[in-house]
């Protein structure tokens, strides 16, 4: 069974239809890269998966369980929040919380969840749970190579380090599927390597990921499957070799050569 199934997802802003029926699936442990020129709807697709936008039509299933259906769009806040936790999202602009240290950025959401749970269940030992969250955060930080920065504030870090913190923060709630929206596009070229290395490491650990990127060589190396989007539709879908070597679609060939020569 696929970990994620997306059926015929459509999204319009006013009169412009941005997603025109997107269907794809992701298997457990797979890395999917989404390529496509600017404006083709890649960001909108990730935002729909993370419930930052409400699709107009379509269906989303995680582990065979329907979490979104166009017939039942108005989800209560509580359900929405639970659904979101199936996914993690790493933003192009990192979006770290500036007033919190690196460690606090990682633990904030988890600790708030514990606090909420403790309000309902008085027997819960908050301190013990907080300790285990701190421990998990330190381990996660270690895995992105930033243990020694745990007490730094985001403004004291380089862009690459900030993005690695953002990845660690997204990992903290153990999402089933981790999404990346052009994670290196806001970075100076010399800083992209460290972020891509972290993502590769996650791929080796079999973290299921959907990555929107313009890094062609990286996408080819790390992906199990590549989706090429064009004007709101999946123009092509296949293994990296199928997409990069034998693509018959002229637009894809043009896009790939344009991107690879940058």
């Amino acid at each position, binding site marked *: 069974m696929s970990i994620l199934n997306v059926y015929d997802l459509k999204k319009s802003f006013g009169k412009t239809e941005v997603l025109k029926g997107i269907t794809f699936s992701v298997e457990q442990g797979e890395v999917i890269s989404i390529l496509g020129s600017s404006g083709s709807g890649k960001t909108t697709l990730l935002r729909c998966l993370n419930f930052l936008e409400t699709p107009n039509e379509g269906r989303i299933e995680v582990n065979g369980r329907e979490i979104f259906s166009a017939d039942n769009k108005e989800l209560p806040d509580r359900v929405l929040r639970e659904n979101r936790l199936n996914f993690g999202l790493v933003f192009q602009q990192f979006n770290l919380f500036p007033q919190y240290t690196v460690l606090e950025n990682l633990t*904030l959401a988890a600790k708030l969840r514990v606090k909420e749970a403790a309000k309902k269940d008085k027997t819960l030992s908050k301190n013990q749970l907080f300790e285990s969250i701190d421990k998990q955060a330190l381990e996660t930080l270690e895995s992105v190579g930033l243990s020694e920065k745990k007490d730094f504030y985001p403004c004291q870090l380089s862009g690459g380090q900030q993005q690695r913190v953002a990845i660690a923060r997204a990992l903290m709630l153990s999402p089933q599927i981790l999404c990346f929206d052009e994670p290196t596009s806001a970075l100076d070229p010399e800083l992209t390597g460290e972020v891509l290395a972290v993502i590769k490491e996650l791929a080796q650990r079999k973290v299921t990921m959907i990555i929107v990127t313009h890094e062609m060589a990286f996408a080819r190396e790390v992906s199990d499957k590549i989706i090429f989007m064009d004007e709101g539709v999946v123009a092509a879908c296949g293994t990296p070799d199928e997409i990069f070597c034998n693509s018959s679609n002229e637009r894809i060939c043009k896009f790939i050569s344009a991107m690879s020569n940058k």
Partner: protein
Amino acid sequence: MFIEVTLALFGGFLTTLQIFFLTLLFSIPLGLVICFGSMSRFKPLQWLVKVFVWIIRGTPLMLQLIVVYFGPGLLCASMERAGQAGNVIYYIADYLNSFSPFVATIIAFSINYACYFSEIYRGGIESIPRGQYEAGQVLGMTKTQIFFRVVLLQVIKRILPPMSNEIITLVKDTSLARIITCYEIIWAGQKFIKSEGIIWPLFYTGAFYLLFSGLLTILFAKMEKKLSYFKN
């Protein structure tokens, strides 16, 4: 003489301080309520609040003082003349009319400053990038958690400079209360012109204002420094 004048001015300055602190006490939270009203998704409410803010910010505070202090009395009188002294509005107006100059001052100042603060808050809240909210949402946080745990401190940092400006203006605006016979420091100074024929006590009041606004300036600089550990 100097000591006598100083003591008299202190008496007036106490009222000045009371106006200052009570106005802040009421207008800071009231401003937040007005701010949420002006950002409400319920259009009629938003519209109503915006018109109200426009009226308050678009007319002199001195005029508002006069309206709050004399308005209810005038309304009562004209209702009596029209033979409508029995209805609810009359009783409300009659009640408002019983307020002392000091209470009327606090009401007018609180409403006026709340409107200014609400616009500062709104600017602050709207200047926080959407990505901050979205990052919180994606991490499964509630709207309330996002506002209080993520956005609020960033807003405070951003609004601190304009707020300190407004608050220092308030120190000096308190002198307007004199117009509705609220005995504050300017009045205390002015009295010596009539009674003793000397004008320097009036000038001397300036020292009180300077000292107090100087203290506030230092306080705000400290707060800004305290929040300078992060950038947003």
